[in-house]
């Protein structure tokens, strides 16, 4: 099968250009996880260092929290991706695209990759913010690359999931409703904010298959200098591949044009 590079590049570039030309969306994308870091990250700031060390394995809670916040924020980029798709449907742009020799599958892939890339804009900003909160980084180039790759895979997975669920929708409210429905359980039933060692058994079970956990633990091992379980990266790749395949199939068959 011939890969349609030209429309893939055109639509992906459109997603990126639109992001960087929309300062409000860019600001919200950056500010949202920053606020998590500032407000939630400061909630244990008065706890003595030994207790922090015993609870989180770090003397600074933000050092523990940062990989988790970055992982959970990849959930919201999926919502933005499906909102952008609904906007294209409602303003007729989807029809303009699909009256050219561009398939629905190509539209889906560029939306998923575009939204995931947009989510990664948060990464350097959050690193800078963490530095400002006194967090230090001692990562190798390979660890930086693996952390970013893990987040990218997580974002692709969630964007694909959102796009598949909202493929037939033209209602602005649907992505928000879906986001509200899945964000809370996925965020709290993971190791993003706290370690799972004190979870009840049922939450531990969810956490152990939750891709947010894999991404958070991967980043945390780099941040805290603990041994890295590289299989997390493999699980994230499987999650991204599976969601991408499901999303491609669903969109190719059921993506509404208007």
């Amino acid at each position: 099968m011939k890969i349609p590079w030209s429309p893939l590049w055109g639509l992906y570039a459109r997603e990126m250009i639109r992001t960087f030309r929309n300062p409000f969306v860019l600001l919200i994308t950056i500010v949202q996880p920053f606020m998590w870091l500032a407000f939630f990250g400061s909630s244990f700031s008065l706890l003595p260092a030994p207790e922090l060390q015993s609870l989180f394995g770090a003397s600074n809670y933000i050092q523990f929290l940062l990989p988790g916040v970055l992982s959970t924020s990849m959930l919201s980029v999926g919502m933005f991706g499906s909102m952008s798709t609904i906007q294209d449907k409602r303003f007729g742009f989807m029809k303009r695209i699909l009256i050219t020799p561009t398939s629905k599958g190509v539209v889906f892939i560029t939306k998923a990759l575009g939204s995931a890339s947009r989510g990664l804009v948060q990464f350097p900003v959050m690193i800078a913010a963490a530095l400002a909160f006194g967090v230090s980084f001692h990562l190798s180039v390979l660890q930086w690359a693996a952390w970013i790759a893990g987040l990218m895979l997580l974002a692709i997975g969630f964007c694909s999931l959102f796009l598949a669920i909202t493929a037939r929708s033209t209602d602005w409210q649907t992505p928000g409703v879906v986001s509200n429905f899945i964000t809370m359980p996925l965020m709290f039933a993971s190791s993003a904010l706290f370690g799972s060692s004190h979870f009840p058994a049922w939450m531990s079970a969810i956490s152990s298959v939750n891709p947010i956990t894999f991404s958070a633990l991967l980043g945390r091992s780099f941040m805290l200098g603990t041994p890295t379980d590289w299989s997390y990266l493999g699980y994230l790749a499987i999650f991204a591949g599976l969601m991408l395949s499901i999303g491609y199939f669903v969109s190719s068959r059921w993506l509404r044009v208007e």
Partner: protein
Amino acid sequence: MTDNTIVVKDLSKHYGSGDRLVRALDHVTLSIPSGTVFGLLGPNGAGKTTLIKVLTGITDITEGDASVAGFDVRTQSMDVRARIGWVAAEVILDDDFTARENLWLQAKLQSLKDWETRADDLLKFFSLSDRADDKVSHFSTGMRKKLEIALALLHQPVVIFMDEPTIGLDVSTRRMLWDIVTGVHKEFGVTVLLTTHYIEEADALCDRIAIIDQGRILAEGTPSELKSRVKADIVQLETGEALDPAKISALPGVQEVRAQGNDWMIRVGTADDFLPRLFATIRTDQIRRISVEKPSLETVFLEVTGRRLGQEEPMRDVRKFYAQMRRARG
């Protein structure tokens, strides 16, 4: 390629099922010769846009066959899409992009390699060269419409579908667009399928016209062929009190009488002969209003559908409505 760029055979498109079945297209058969401007004339909800959606592969065919530029719409959809351009009722551009970036994106979607020269030529043709690097959100409606037509022409299509391109435009912009459509047709030799519910637009622009209503093609031909179908004048009459239809029908020269309450449509051989007979039959104080129409596309429409083009249901297409509202706000 055949002599007919678009061939539609016994095509139907249904939405829903059972009691809610809507026959948007009902056994439509059409042949559109290459290089013509072909008009689909009909009221809102007649099936014009549905036919374009089917021919562009946006929606599936329920039954029947259709081909565009020699390719089967059902089985060779991608080949069809590589050879068609589309101009929407509402202007659809990426407002975050400049005019040149919109052309760049269109080139990418069409997988065009050498598009810059063609894009420059089109910008020049549509007098947009000076604004090529401006964001299209700052463009006037007329400029946006020109750019949209330029996008449709970028990949040198065989056919351009124009779906009610002048809906909601003011009179001067509409006239400008008519000139553009005529100019594009002459300059680029492209076949144009244009839908409209403006009779004067169909008359001014189209080489051939099909009248469509309730999903069916009711008449088709050149404007003069269609007008020659009506070998009669139409007398429109509004009376202050009820009249006996048999009395009117019995008058010499009357071909047909249709009445709705006190509104009458009387088809006669020639109005000059009929009117003196009418005035001799009824009292003049019974007449509230009377008018005579000579054969025109309006009377053709009236004849084939039994109603005027303006007497239609409220607009069903919400997006078109909003497009009109946006333009009205300027």
